[in-house]
């Protein structure tokens, strides 16, 4: 039963490979950040699946951290790419 989960982890790594292709071909910066977010979701999936394969709760902490990192990465991108005058109170 556990090896089914390991097989699932390998499949999720393939989805991260698809994210690399998107990152390579992506026309704009937004596509590249989407590829990073897909890789983040893939990492979360792999951590949960491998944790279930080995019944190791530490992998779930890794998945939690992966979730937060993916969110922070996209927020940092949105903050860095914003143009002046974008803040509603006019201070940006």
């Amino acid at each position, binding site marked *: 039963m556990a090896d089914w989960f390991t097989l*699932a982890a390998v499949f999720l790594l*393939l989805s991260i490979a698809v994210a690399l292709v998107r990152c390579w071909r992506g026309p*704009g910066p*937004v596509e590249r950040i989407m590829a990073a977010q897909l890789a983040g979701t893939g990492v979360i999936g792999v951590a*949960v699946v491998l944790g279930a394969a080995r019944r190791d709760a530490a992998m*779930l902490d890794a998945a939690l951290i992966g979730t937060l990192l993916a969110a922070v990465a996209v*927020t940092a*991108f949105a903050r860095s790419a*914003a143009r002046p005058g974008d803040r509603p109170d006019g201070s940006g």
Partner: protein
Amino acid sequence: MSWTDLAVLALLGAGLAFYGAGSLGLLRFPDTASRLHALTKADNLGLGLVALAAALHWGSLAVAAKIALVWLFAVIAAGITSQLLARQARLDGTRSHRDGVQP
């Protein structure tokens, strides 16, 4: 193969199918908005199903609660990031593939 094993396998298969659909959608869709759509929704549903399979296979309730927390954070993060990315794509002026198509 007890009933729970069958349920776990079915959930795992469905989760991976949605994962694959989301990833392929990110690769094949014509413009930014539809790629964002595929990335945010299909992948998170896939993650939810895979997490459910993992929780069922694991057996203990505390771990299932932690897995549910992981999925909850992932869904919240995806909701926020898709709005940020869509706004950023619009600010960058990326053209939708339907521009100029009369409704």
